[in-house]
């Protein structure tokens, strides 16, 4: 039962020290260097939700990497795409590990973008609640249906429909549910301790 402790030195991607912004996120007590499957999946999905929220979401991810001094970790578009493809549900799934450092960088960026979109996220969730209470179909609201449509389109075009995790998400209603759930998660990412909360939750049920 020797769990690798959080004290293990990690292979720094570059000789220089790590961006300090990552120090706010503790290392989880998991064995090895790579993130668990669920962690990779969740991070990719939360970024997918961001891309559905605003056009040019993937550009935003790269420009935030620049802004937050994370270029040493997320070098360029191809590098980012390879990280995202570590999500086992992707059509273009690449069997590469997602390192803890890379995961931290992606989470930091996701939370920064979410914070910038706080107002939109809150409004969409409140619209959803009102429609849901009154049993009005979600398509009735233009803004919400735009988000849901874009999310479904992104999901269908990028995920492999034959994978077990995707099989459960074949209907539009199921995908809408996932999109709303991710919207709620994004709202939590905007909070004072949102970044830490989201990060720690990615390892629930994964540590020994």
């Amino acid at each position, binding site marked *: 039962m020797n769990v690798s402790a959080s004290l293990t030195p990690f292979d720094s991607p570059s000789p220089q020290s790590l961006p300090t912004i990552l120090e706010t996120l503790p290392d*989880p007590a998991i064995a090895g260097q790579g993130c668990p499957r669920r962690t990779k999946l969740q991070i990719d999905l939360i970024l997918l939700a961001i891309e559905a929220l605003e056009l040019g979401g993937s550009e935003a991810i790269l420009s935030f990497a620049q802004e937050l001094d994370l270029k040493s970790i997320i070098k360029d578009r191809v590098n980012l795409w390879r990280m995202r493809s570590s999500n086992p549900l992707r059509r273009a799934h690449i069997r590469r590990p997602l390192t803890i450092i890379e995961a931290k960088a992606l989470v930091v960026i996701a939370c920064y973008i979410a914070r910038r979109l706080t107002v939109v996220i809150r409004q969409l969730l409140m619209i*959803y*609640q009102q429609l849901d209470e009154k049993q009005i179909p979600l398509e009735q609201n233009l803004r919400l249906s735009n988000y849901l449509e874009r999310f479904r389109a992104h999901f269908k075009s990028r995920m492999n429909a034959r994978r077990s995790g995707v099989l459960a998400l074949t209907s539009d209603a199921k995908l809408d549910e996932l999109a709303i759930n991710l919207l709620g998660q994004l709202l939590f990412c905007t909070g004072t301790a949102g970044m830490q909360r989201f990060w720690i939750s990615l390892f629930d049920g994964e*540590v020994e």
Partner: protein
Amino acid sequence: MNIQRKYSLPNCTLLLEGLSDVSRAAHFQELRPELSILVNAECYLSGYNQPLTGGREFFESLVRAVSAYAQEFLSSVPNPQAHNQESELVEFQKIGSDQHRLIVHSESAPEGFESNPTNYSQRPPIQIDLNTVQLFDLVEAVDQFFADSQTLPELSLELQPVTRRYGGASPAFIRQAVPAAVGVSSLAVAAIAFNMIPPPQVRPPQSQPDDKTSSITPNITPSASAATTPLTAAAATPIAAANPTSTPPVKNLESLLTTVPEITDASQLRALNRQVYNQIHPAWTNRLGLKQELIYRLGVAADGAIVGYKAVNKEANEGIGQTPLPNLLYNPANRAPISNEPIAQFRVVFTPEGVLQVSPWRGYLRTPEVIGTKISDANIVKGLNQKLYNTVRRNWGGKPTFKRDLKYRVAVNKDGVIADYEPLNQVAFDYFRETPLPKMFQSIYGSNVAAPNNQEPLAHFQVVFKPSGTLEVTPWRGYQ
């Protein structure tokens, strides 16, 4: 001086009122003095006119439950700390993807109600349904409080992932070798052996242990048959006693034991074993991060007070700070000093898996028996047997998920009111939540932390829940 702190979000306002600790002085020139003593906490939620109010116990429970449930919301992995109705005032239930139920149980009863539970009627719990945005505002109010270093600075946000063992399958218990006479390591009433990871970790002030843990101490008078054999130092290589930080502890358990008699009566040990467990279990909050088992030898007085401890292994000596033991040592201020009282010894193990094990240091010399006066009239017992069966049967439904019989000892008073219960086998311990026993206990006593102090005669029964849904209640035949 009275201080107010307010954390306002669109759907939630948290209002804390308290005082500054004058002894820490030098605050008077500060613009924002430190609120170090909480007098009152109010939580206003949109759509509800009445705030949730309470004292420190309520507030700590609120922040623990909110924090744990926020994590569960994010990961969809159940977080035990968010649903801990046995020892928390506040819990959450998920009702739908976008609906969350906040439940607040009324504060624990005033001191001394245990002896007369019938006069104390519990207020029903308050339930408030929140949607995701409202829940977020509550979490955010709590997080803003955590971020405020001038308000109850000893409460800080400490997040931990839920361990794999809690993710569904029942945990594989790692049993340590205990003296052969001990069958099952002792199990406390409705305790949970899983990792309870309460972020935030609360470091209680060293003045007083949390009053929840050990308010109940039956006065057991040592039975006449208790063999009193003075103890010779048992450990061949004594390790220096860990240095606790509180009031003068018993520095040297061995030397104490050479001067006072030792409690060896099996029945008394068994009762004390549960009391020790019930003190340590709720107080051991941060259950992650142990690399090795920490093993201690405890000296315990006849009323359950922990009067001394000694590290058995090196890790235990170094890791004492990670255990609640220093805070649980009896405080002479609220208990008469110990002189010449007989002492019982226990072996206490904190495992890296977050499991607490308590067992008598030397095991049981004989099969223990239940302590206390018993109702022996065969007709009365028969009637109570039927009554207990009916009550439990009425409250137990649904489809069992366990595969083996759950066995409990359940004690009732002459009116058939449940007074005590304990699991008798491991599965009974693992699946106790599937039985109605904790809820029945909770509804009568408002707590599930310890057995009430019962001086009245009791009738004891063995209650077996079978995977088939069958229930068996038979008169108690003693520990097997």
